[in-house]
């Protein structure tokens, strides 16, 4: 059975009447990772937020979003809130701004856990501590008493992953989790995402415009352009035999870059055209 099924999802702006997602249908199998690729403004983030029912109030959505067979559009705000975090966990792009700048990190973590579990303060700290250690964060207790601006983007990203580990959600939705990071942190975070899947056995929706990352982590890929899904399929197939022109373009631009890179690495002389 599909864990998540999206049928005919449509999202539009009430003020301008503009359609942001035209008519999307896709599904997510248990224990798999679906990547959504596309340039900014193609509707990737809006799709994810639609699943969370967290789009801005001027965006309306219609269609079916079935989570474990139940349409989330039929859920009340209160029921939906119970699902957020516990069942559907989101990880944002920019760790720096994802936490309230005027509180220490621990406050957000504790508030979230208190919302979903009846744990004592001590148990929360204990679980957070071991989760944070598992994502290679040293001195977790100290980190929990720090303000966001005192930590690096990569660390904050891993804190979000650690929170996801404790929450044990069914689906993790990661919205460009590596875009704001430098190359080394990017690598570390991706490794943590892979481990996360192995460990929790959960499904994942992974949004990115970085094809290398997607190739590395996803089982299936959706390619979006202007609010429409223009191509879908197994990751390897989409990358080796792209059907749609846009996908071909995406893959080829990447190819050019990496070819260039490979040439340099192989020590060929690079002719600079001036």
């Amino acid at each position, binding site marked *: 059975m599909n864990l998540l099924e999206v049928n005919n999802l449509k999202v539009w702006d009430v003020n301008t009447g503009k359609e942001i997602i035209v008519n999307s249908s896709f599904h997510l199998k248990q224990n798999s990772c679906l990547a959504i690729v596309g340039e900014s403004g193609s509707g990737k983030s809006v799709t994810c937020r639609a699943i969370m029912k*967290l789009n801005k109030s001027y965006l309306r959505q219609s269609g079916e979003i079935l989570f474990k067979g139940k349409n989330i559009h039929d859920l009340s705000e209160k029921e939906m809130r119970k699902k*957020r975090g516990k069942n*559907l966990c989101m990880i944002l792009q920019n760790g720096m701004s994802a936490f309230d700048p*005027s*509180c220490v990190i621990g406050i*957000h973590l504790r508030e979230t856990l208190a*919302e979903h579990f009846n744990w004592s303060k001590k148990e929360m700290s204990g679980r957070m501590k071991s989760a944070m250690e598992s994502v290679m964060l040293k001195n977790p207790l100290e980190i929990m008493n720090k303000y966001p601006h005192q930590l690096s983007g990569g660390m904050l990203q891993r804190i979000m992953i650690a929170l996801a580990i404790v929450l044990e959600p069914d689906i993790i939705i990661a919205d460009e989790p590596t875009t704001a990071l430098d190359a080394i942190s990017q690598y570390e975070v991706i490794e943590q995402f892979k481990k996360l899947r192995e460990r929790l056995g959960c499904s994942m929706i992974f949004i990115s415009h970085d094809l290398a990352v997607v190739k590395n982590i996803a089982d299936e890929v959706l390619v979006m352009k202007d609010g429409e899904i223009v191509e879908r399929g197994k990751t390897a197939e989409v990358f080796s035999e792209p059907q749609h022109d846009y996908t071909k373009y995406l893959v080829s631009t990447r190819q050019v870059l990496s070819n260039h890179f490979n040439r340099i690495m192989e020590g060929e002389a690079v002719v600079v055209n001036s």
Partner: protein
Amino acid sequence: MASYILRRILIMIPLLIIISFVTFVLINLSPLDPAEVVLQSQGVPQITDQLIAETKEEFGMDKPFLVQYFHWFISCLQLDFGHSYVTGKPVWSLIGPAFLNTLKLTVVSSVAIIALSILLGVICAVREGKMIDKSIRGVSFFLTAMPSYWLASLMILYISVKLNLLPTSGMNSFKSYILPVAIITISYAGIYFRNVRTSMINNLNEDYVLYGRACGLSEKKITIHILRNSLQVAISIFGMAVPIILGSTVVIENVFAWPGLGSLSIQAILSRDFPIIQAYVLVLATAFVIFNTLSDIVNAVMNPKLRSNL
């Protein structure tokens, strides 16, 4: 943190000394000879050179400039600002109570301004772009363009005289506060609620709100986070506003005959009563510096990002 607060308080001392010096120099820049002013304001019919010389000696005006400043500064520390040229009363006996009255008006108005600004700011932010947001901003635009003394006069005419609801002037009961406070609040809240609104809106669109919701936090908790962050901006703005209001209630005080610094200073300016003007500047500038320091400290305590930069 403690060291920052101490540093901020210590830095006030040189600042206050400079302020006192500037105040002293300012009065001595007057194109008139102060001795002559003294005699004129006492209504002496014929001012002779001998009288001027005597007055100079009496007021210590014949001494070197820095010595005069030093004497003046020392006596200011003891709240002795000299005597009024006109009435001969000690300046502090006039300034002290007037300052208290102005302070009362300022504090009550500031509380009203803060309450109204936050209320309107939050309403407009939550309903951004809707009818209520637009109309509140539109009305506030015209209210801030209104001369406050004009509005005050109209209110006196219609509310106090025609309807006989509130006193026209003076400071007798809590009723006396209503009109002046209302006028000051209208003029300032119209500016400051915009800041609350903008900072609320900026915060509503922050990622931490989205992430908080995505983690399933209740709206109540999220609102507390937003308020916490937007109030920081609001508080820093109000920190600047309070001393400014303290110094600019002059016109309103005059319209309502409020027995405060504003009324006193205008009297002093019209009769060129220099010691009072001097004390007025010194007292308000000191209060200004103290309030600014306080607001900086409160800001630093509230804002962890600032705190770690100190």
